[in-house]
């Protein structure tokens, strides 16, 4: 992945649903490649024998007891944020053929 040629900006922008111009692809592509290069520096560190860490703090079992219902939004809150809505549902372009 750290090989510059390996960063497929077309594929990444498609996954991210971003319609990038050729200039943007050039600019962002090289920036992302630089970020990936930084991982090479990280990869060079010897971490054998270090346990993988998901969190900096060793906190466990943070949860909500009681399963009691809390407040909800009115459906209009969502409709007002959506570019298009119908019958309180968000409308998006058709996603399956």
């Amino acid at each position, binding site marked *: 992945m750290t090989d510059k040629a390996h960063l497929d900006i077309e594929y990444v922008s498609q996954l991210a649903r971003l319609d990038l111009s050729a200039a943007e692809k050039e600019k962002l592509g090289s920036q992302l490649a630089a970020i990936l290069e930084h991982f090479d520096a990280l990869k060079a560190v010897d971490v054998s024998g270090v346990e993988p860490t998901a969190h900096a703090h060793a906190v466990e079992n943070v949860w909500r007891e009681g399963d009691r219902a809390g407040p909800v*939004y009115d459906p209009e809150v969502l409709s007002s944020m959506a570019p298009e809505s119908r019958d309180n549902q968000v409308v998006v372009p058709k996603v399956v053929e």
Partner: protein
Amino acid sequence: MEYDVVIGLEIHVQLKTRTKMFTAAPYAYGADPNTLIDPVVLGLPGTLPVLNHAAVEACAKLGLLLACEIAEVCKWDRKNYFYPDSPKNYQLTQNEQPLCLGGQVEIELPGTSRNIQGEHRLVKLNRIHLEEDPGKLTHTAFDTTIDFNRAGVPLAEIVTEPDLHSSEEAVAFLNALIHLIHYAGVSDCDMEKGQLRCDANVSLKPAGSKTLGTRTEMKNLNSISNVRAAIEYEIARQTELLDAGESITQETRRWSAENGTSSSLRSKEEAHDYRYFPDPDLMPVRMDRARVAELQAALPERPYDKQRRYQETLDLPFTLTSVLCPDPKLCTFFEEALELHPAPKVIANYIANDLLRELSASAAHGESALSISDCPLTPAHIAELAKLIENGVITKQIAKEVFTTMYQSGNMPAVIVEKEGLQQSDNSDEIEALCREAIAGNAKAVAQFKEGNAKALNALKGPVMKATKGQANPATLDQILRSLIQSEA
């Protein structure tokens, strides 16, 4: 060419908690669109998820009943994807360290007929992990609409090993699994309401080969009959391709119940590059071993263990246990009645036949049968009815009448018998007089009986039973008839 079929299932089960997996917004099926949403459900900036402990408990309980090992620690991962059913562009799931590991489910293969018990075997599970349900998309002819009510509902995803080998086995597995989930009480498993959904992975390999073939994944299987049909279709499709020397493409396929066919799901959104990483907002869960032991100790008896116990220690036939044992509520009803009067066969018969018949009959037109919890009768009704028969107070024939009356009125059977004067008649004088009439009126039957045809006696019993409205004690009647005919000879 002969092929071995290899099937693995992934089953998503909505856990019956009141609130969502990572926020306190409630969930209920059928609510108006987008009325069960809050900032966490919508993934608004700055919101943080907080785990619902009830979902972890429910999943652990299910895992233990499915003989899984409960992990010491489980963690949360983000599964990144871009699809409008998720407002935050990732799904919270457990990829690396799921809550439940391994496990197995006992299944029963179809017997040679409905009344015959089939072979049992154990199907291996890979894991059960927790994740959140996405929102619900509705595709119209022109666009797609989104309802986020379902988003964030806790799901247990049960993943089998590729340990199933036919559509029958897959169906048997699903049925056994649904019974177990009902016993655990963690979901209603109503497939029509999306509470249980099944994906099937199917591959073929040359018979006896050790190497697995290329598999396809079938989605959108929302009923047991769809699971059966989709798997059978896929086996036939792959067989045809392989026989023609072609190869199988690894792909996701969508089953269409209307057409009875599946098609490749060439959605642009199906990029399988989920870039899982540990969710930084959620802390790991360390399962308290004392609590796990408590859950283990409180597990219900598994359905097939119960069935074996009923058959071996209560001597109930398969035809009754196969009706009672899948439904924990029926079993509780049965066992409560049994506590009051130890007549397993009579009581099981009344529940499995008469009671279930009345429950389906009293359902309104087009609705599904009433459940035992809506039943107007209590275990005490059935126990008392069985006792009245056993003590000779009423005949079995009268008991049918009493059953109907008590189902309609809810009155106790002893009260009905008393009020309507249905007690069995042991009045030998009355019975003898009626027997003499019957013998005089049917010389043919008498002659046949004398010639050794024991069944001919029934023709003589009939009129007596009719005259006494079924109340004549059958034993007394039999005895009187025989002695009268013998004394005639």
